[in-house]
């Protein structure tokens, strides 16, 4: 198989990982809060997207927007009422809380919607193959890649060129210093948490063709999200981007050539990488 095919196939999967995980990276870098429930927010959004398309006939892009908005709103509520209480708590309490949240979400979804996997009805223009002249490839994959790149650019511009972005970057690098300089870290975090969770929701909806969507989603992909975040470096958007593509492409190549042991190498690679560079590819060494 030619190189472009492999790169595109891997990049598509990687993009899904990117969109879902970027929020987790920034919030973990910003607040140091171990949010293992990130996948649960993603899943809720995915369900909102898929079900609104199924029962209300919403077109795909509108459903994505709805998913983003709904989960962002939910994130704000949960952050202000529950998460905020645990910022000073031990890492373990945070783990306990977020896993509890995951269980509650899984149970609620199973009880209200059911344990089966949800199937996404992709719009016509995303199905089948697209002819780019030099290449014929799966339309859906091309669309995801385009979306991921666009998001990456938007986020990069946002972080590098706006005041808000500067404040977030400052708070990620040194929270105390940023606070002492007058940055309202609390509000910043609520906003980041909301946007990050909203993006995760869109990622789950977009990626449902590849990653599936069922109540076990938050636990099943937890390891992958954490790996992408750790390898990319906490709080580094471009880090998450490249880490996600790297893992996506590697996963694809390994499964193609060594279907027997494929996924194992991802974990072996992560192990080697984090041992060599504990702060991730793009992270900053701990002060």
């Amino acid at each position, binding site marked *: 198989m030619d190189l472009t095919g492999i790169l595109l196939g891997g990049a598509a999967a990687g993009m899904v990982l990117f969109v879902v995980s970027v929020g987790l990276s920034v919030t973990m870098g910003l607040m140091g809060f171990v949010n293992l429930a990130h996948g649960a927010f993603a899943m809720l959004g995915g369900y909102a997207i898929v079900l609104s398309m199924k029962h209300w006939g919403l077109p795909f892009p509108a459903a994505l927007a709805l998913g983003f908005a709904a989960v962002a709103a939910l994130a704000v509520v949960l952050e202000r009422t529950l998460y905020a209480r645990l910022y000073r708590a031990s890492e373990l309490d945070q783990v306990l809380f977020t896993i509890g949240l995951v269980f509650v979400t899984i149970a609620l979804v199973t009880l209200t919607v059911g*344990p089966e996997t949800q199937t996404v009805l992709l719009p016509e223009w995303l199905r089948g193959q697209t002819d780019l002249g030099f290449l014929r490839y799966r339309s859906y994959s091309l669309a995801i890649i385009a979306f991921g790149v666009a998001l990456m650019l938007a986020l990069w511009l946002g972080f590098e060129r706006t005041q808000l972005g500067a404040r977030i970057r400052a708070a990620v690098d040194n929270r105390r210093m940023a606070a002492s300089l007058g940055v309202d870290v609390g509000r910043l975090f609520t906003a980041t948490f909301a946007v990050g969770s909203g993006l995760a929701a869109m990622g789950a909806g977009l990626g449902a063709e590849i990653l*599936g969507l069922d109540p076990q989603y938050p636990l099943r992909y937890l390891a992958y999200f954490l790996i992408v975040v750790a390898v990319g470096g906490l709080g580094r958007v471009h880090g998450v981007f490249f880490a996600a593509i790297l893992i996506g492409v590697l*996963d694809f190549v390994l499964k193609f050539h060594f*279907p027997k042991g494929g996924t194992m190498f991802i974990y072996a690679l992560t192990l080697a990488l984090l041992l060599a560079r504990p702060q991730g590819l793009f992270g900053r060494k701990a002060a």
Partner: protein
Amino acid sequence: MKSRLVSLFAAASLAAIAGGAQSQTVRIGVKLTYTGVGAEFGQQVDRGMQMFVKLNPGAFGSCKVEIVKRDGKNPGGADSKTAVAELITQEKVDLVAGIIYSGNAIASAPVVDAAKKPLVIMNAGTAWITNLSPYIARVSFSMWHAGHAMGDAAAKTLKAKTAVVGYSDFPPGKDSLEAFKHAFEAAGGKVIDEIPMGGPGQVPDFTPFFQRAKDKKPDVFFVFVPAGDHAVGVVKTYGALGMRQAGIRLIGPGDITQDIKLQAMGKDAIGLVTMHHYHADLDNPANKRLVAAWKQEWGAAATPDFMAIQGYDGMAAIAHAARSLNCKMDPEKVMAALKGWTFKDSPRGPISIDPSTRDIVMNEYLSELVMQDGRLVQRPIATIRGVKDMCKELKVGRCK
């Protein structure tokens, strides 16, 4: 004097009724996965059992039936083993039935063997499971029923010369691969690539595996994945990569076209050829009756599938044992009643239990998926009658 005789008579008859009433109850312990990843399957088998009792009210004769249910929770083995042990020791059931996953069946075998209680397996398909204890009988299938028959049919009926096999990398998958390969190569075909496609735990992105299969350009691509969400992913990827246009037929056991997932697969599934012991479109009076009653009970979107029929037939087998033994479920006699049992009116066609292996003997149906009035429907190509588990017949590997 008269009053004494009357009271004696009354006492004796009361004792007879009481004693008779005790032996009249058949307690069935059902162990299925009611929660977690296997919840849907547990529900289908459970419904199949319910439907048998509903459509055949006289099947158990004068026996009163009590069903005690336990949740196996996951394919891990330990929880199922505990559940089965509790059914036997705490609930004192006469026999155990159910079990979706091979791992759970394997873990539970020593328990039923030590307790000498019959176990009627209603799904778990790894071929050598029935060899684990003389108290195990299976009414569902072995991977070899469909796999072997398909290998044969692929070469002879579909006239394929080369095949690539994709399978989920765990024992039922490897079983399926071996079964297909055995028959396909015996009939003159050649398996040119074997691609393990991740584990049964989560649905992988099938794209890299299918791309590899596509590059090999086989006549047929035989795929086994666990029934359920894996199957949906398979069909979608097949369509997304344009494999049908490239001239590669997708074939496999009926696990990949499970009726409860079928309609969600859409246009990509057209042309898929499967070999299985049951699908909801089978054209016989018993099945028509079952499907109609099913939809009436659980809604027009609901449908029986191969797991449901296994629950149905399992109850039929147990009912036969109960009736022929007058509700006294002595374990040795139950096994004797099950061995050689035949059931001509099953919705999947005539079935029986092979007395030497205690495994099921049944028809296998070769079908192709077509679109009819906006619905995916199985169109019959051929029927292979009286198929046994060829693994044990030919004594291959662990089936000796």
